[in-house]
């Protein structure tokens, strides 16, 4: 039984100068993500295949940023596309497809890490009020080997693993994917201000962990100069936004 019913015009047009809508220069117009999703919704297998080919690199990149393993990243990305397919009818055409895809991958990755390592919650306070944080349970077996037995890349990843998921999400999307804070806000379902606060706090927390790791490895990071009380006396205590 065929998986899809028929080929939609969205994909027929691609690379087909006769059937495709042409730009002023004469080159065939690439179907948009929304065109491809409409095609897939109508049962066009090639439209969905094109979605996968177009976005698999970014899906794998984000998944790898979370799990750090090629196989796990491929499993996560594959599951993300399967979820996309199963929920094609629920796609909201008011949003970009990538926003949806990032959201699915991030949720899958966080679930994956929760299963791999139990998390404990604690509460911190910031300008938006109390926020639940999921921090790794220090009593449980860590997924990485002891610090002095592993190479630097793994050590840095261990520092990243110590970040709470909501900091990590924002940092991965900003640092690795280069998304603007407004788009990240849409993906994580938070305000722009909250995303900037998480980015600020996440970078700071990571720097502290990283410098601690560097000192433990005998590499002295630039020791930050202390700020005199006089310097900070009249300064605001909140983060810049």
């Amino acid at each position: 039984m065929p998986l899809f019913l028929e080929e939609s015009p969205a994909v027929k047009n691609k690379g087909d100068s006769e059937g495709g809508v042409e730009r002023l220069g004469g080159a065939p117009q690439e179907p948009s993500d929304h065109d491809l999703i409409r095609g897939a919704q109508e049962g066009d297998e090639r439209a969905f295949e094109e979605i996968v080919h177009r976005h698999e690199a970014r899906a794998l990149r984000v998944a790898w940023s979370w799990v750090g393993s090629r196989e796990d990243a491929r499993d996560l990305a594959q599951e993300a596309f399967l979820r996309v397919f199963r929920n094609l009818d629920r796609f909201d055409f008011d949003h970009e497809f990538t926003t949806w895809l990032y959201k699915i991958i991030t949720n899958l990755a966080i679930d994956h890490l929760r299963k791999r390592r139990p998390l404990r919650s604690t509460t911190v306070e910031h300008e938006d009020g109390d926020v639940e944080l999921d921090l790794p349970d220090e009593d449980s077996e860590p997924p990485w080997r002891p610090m002095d037995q592993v190479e630097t890349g793994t050590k840095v990843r261990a520092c990243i693993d110590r970040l709470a998921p909501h900091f990590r999400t924002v940092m991965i999307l900003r640092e690795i994917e280069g998304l603007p804070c407004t788009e990240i806000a849409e993906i994580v379902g938070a305000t722009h201000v909250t995303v900037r606060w998480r980015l600020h706090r996440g970078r700071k927390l990571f720097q502290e962990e990283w410098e601690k790791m560097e000192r433990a490895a005998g590499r002295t990071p630039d020791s930050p100069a202390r700020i005199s009380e006089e310097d900070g006396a009249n300064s605001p205590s909140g983060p810049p936004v």
Partner: protein
Amino acid sequence: MHDAMTTCFEVREKLPLFVGEDLEPEAMQIVRAHLAKCPPCAQEARSASRARDAFRDALHVPGADLSSPSLWGAIQSQLSAEERERAPQPIAELEALDGGAPSRSRFLRLVGGIAAVAALVVVALSVEFGRTELPGANLQAPEGFVVKKLEEVGLKRVQPGARTLFEEASPYLEPFQRPSSGPNSLAGYRHTGRRIR
């Protein structure tokens, strides 16, 4: 260490966003100007920037390495398998399955048959018991049983001529149609004042 408008503390609070150029352009300019004049803050900015680079380096991976081979093959196989599971199976295929792997399906059939027979037996028994009266419905008290129990709880036979408990209580007992004579009769008994427990 001081700008006219900005302290080191304020600048350092802005550094995590400054290193990623995530501040507003005006704030970026202010921080940049302060760093140009303040070596300790500039050093702090370099530390923040190096930490950011370490983060990016640790998570950076060439996309081609991960996406080769394409995920499409595995996704297509999975979707086809799901589609086959959803599709109704032809009768011939089911029969072939039955003939090919008899032990499991026959065992399930046997269990189902036993369950059906057991259910029939339960229904038949309930119908049979439904015809009979409840246990104890036809039981009668042994001779003198009630009189003995009455004496135990404080009711005592009175002398002839005295007004009996039954005579006193008969207007109230009438609806119960208690027999006025015989071994279960209350006639000839009077309450002695003992508390009935």
